[in-house]
């Protein structure tokens, strides 16, 4: 489903050019559960931005569901983000002025779905994360774990191909972290493709496949036997 071929991403730092990604080849199949790990500066954030179509590579090809995204313009990328990617961020990134329900409805706005249907779909997504009783609340009235579950509902509402989570438990205590990861496990079991960017081994241990990045390259790509057997 995801196929990266010889991806290079260059940034200019003043006069000098610097390669954040240096020839990455990667392919991820449907319903994989992948952890992307590595120290900061290893290129994992850059890779995540590319996977999430927030950015395009300087070189190489990124095929997502049979479509080459490397050459897409801003509008096409926005459409792909809307339809194929469900983002989950470390600091939740909910819209503070909107209710929980409207936060979850927001991605559907850009698909031109009528309001009544949006509300229905958002309610279903909130049901999935067990928060449909909090629809009318503002994000700041919820705990961190609840906020992240709202973010998960928002990521799921458009039935994306990939759930892309960037340090999803970075701002949570260990108990709520475990709850969120249990939610990911469950979503994976329901057939969702999940990619988690993390630097915590505990979190990576939930995933079936671990990709380790260093200096813009993939240095390790291993299957987690304990998890796959299940």
């Amino acid at each position, binding site marked *: 489903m995801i196929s990266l071929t010889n991806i290079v991403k260059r940034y200019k730092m003043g006069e000098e050019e610097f390669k954040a990604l240096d020839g990455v080849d990667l392919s991820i199949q449907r319903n994989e559960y992948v952890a992307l790990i590595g120290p900061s500066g290893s290129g994992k954030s850059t890779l995540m*931005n590319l996977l*999430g179509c*927030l*950015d395009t590579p300087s070189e190489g090809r990124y095929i997502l569901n049979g479509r080459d995204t490397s050459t897409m313009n*801003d*509008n096409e990328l*926005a*459409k792909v*983000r*809307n*339809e194929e990617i469900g*983002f989950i*961020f470390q600091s939740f*990134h*909910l*819209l503070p*002025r*909107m209710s929980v329900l409207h936060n979850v409805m*927001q*991605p559907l*706005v*850009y*698909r*031109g*779905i*009528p*309001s009544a249907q949006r509300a229905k779909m958002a309610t279903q997504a909130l049901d999935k994360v067990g928060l449909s009783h909090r629809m009318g609340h503002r994000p700041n009235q919820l705990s961190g774990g609840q906020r992240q579950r709202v973010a998960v509902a*928002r990521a799921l509402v*458009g039935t994306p191909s990939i759930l892309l989570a960037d340090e999803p438990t970075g701002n949570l205590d260990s108990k709520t972290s475990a709850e969120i990861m249990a939610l990911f496990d469950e979503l994976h079991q329901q057939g969702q493709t999940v990619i988690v960017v993390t630097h915590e081994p505990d979190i990576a241990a939930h995933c079936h496949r671990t990709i380790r990045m260093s200096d813009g390259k993939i240095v390790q790509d291993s299957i987690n036997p304990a998890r796959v057997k299940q």
Partner: protein
Amino acid sequence: MYAFLEAFRAAMSSLMANRMRSFLTTLGILIGTGSVIAVVSLVQGFSESIKSQFADVGGSTMTLQAVNNNENFRTGKLNNITFDDVDALRYRVPGVGVVAPIMQVQTAGASYKGRTASPQIIATTTEFQAVRARYPEFGRFIVESDDKGRRRVAVIGAQLRDDLKMAENPVGEYFRIGNEWFKVVGMMEKQGELLGFSQDNYAVIPFDVGRALMGNNNEPFISASFTVQKMEEAEQVRERVKRAIRASRGLKPGQDSDFKVEAADTFIKQFEEITATATAVLGGIVGISLLVGGIGIMNIMLVSVTERTREIGILKALGATRRDILIQFLLEAGLLALLGGIIGIILGYLVGMGIASMIPGFPPAQAPLWVVIAAAGFSALVGVVFGIMPASKAASLDPIEALRFE
């Protein structure tokens, strides 16, 4: 369309989230539109009231008057319309309808049961009624036999009746103009006030009675009002009248006319020109104040875009295109200005009404719909135009940078 509605909702909610700031941001627009509506509503109320005073005297009525320059006044050799001129007007110009000679009679005022008043005394003929389109409320107007028989009768205005404290229906009462007794035969419909002066403080007496009242010591100063038979021939009739009066006054070719023939609506036309000029000048001033208001909106919107960088990043990550973001911020700026404009219109109108009611005799303020719509539309336009820069700044933010923004 959905996208537009959603953008509208989003813009509304972000304006509401910062009510105080939104209000202060749009204050410039509010004051700009408010002041223009206040002034325009006063000018319009004023001009509407003047127009309605003249509404009954249409373009088919014209006046023949003598023209005197400063030299004439200095030497005392005043030009005057003569009775021959009136006859010429009446009998020698095809297309002229009825002619009413009008003489302003200078007298010592009016009195009734020991009470006195200073009405305007108009000596004229029965045609005056047709020319001026005024009708009696009680009794009748001057008739031909009044003039022929030199009857001492008068038709008065409502203000004179009130000043002299006559009965509600004054017909049949006797009062004095100067030293002469007059019988009231009618009272005309009330005209109201114009610029604080009553239009009903007058007495109309038969023309020949007026001449007798003036005595022989004075050459009466007269003018003539007349109608044209066909409205569409007004200009031709006017030219014919000019030629006939030149002939009757014995003016040689090349000599300047010492009289003028004016349509009754000339004054209205001049007045309209004045108000149009005033409105244009005001429009310019308002344009500048809206410009300043627009710059205020642009400034705050730029700040707001910076503040909301992360929100923009989130929306982009969720799939908002440049266009979605652009429309949302443009709408926000436009709505902000429009709301300011609408509040300004309401406040301006209230201020206009307040001022109008504080000046005695000033007509009530009027805000015509086109001015209201133009003011609202223009302020919204200012918002959108000055929103372009902040909105395109928001739209072109890089989603990765924006998401990372703290």
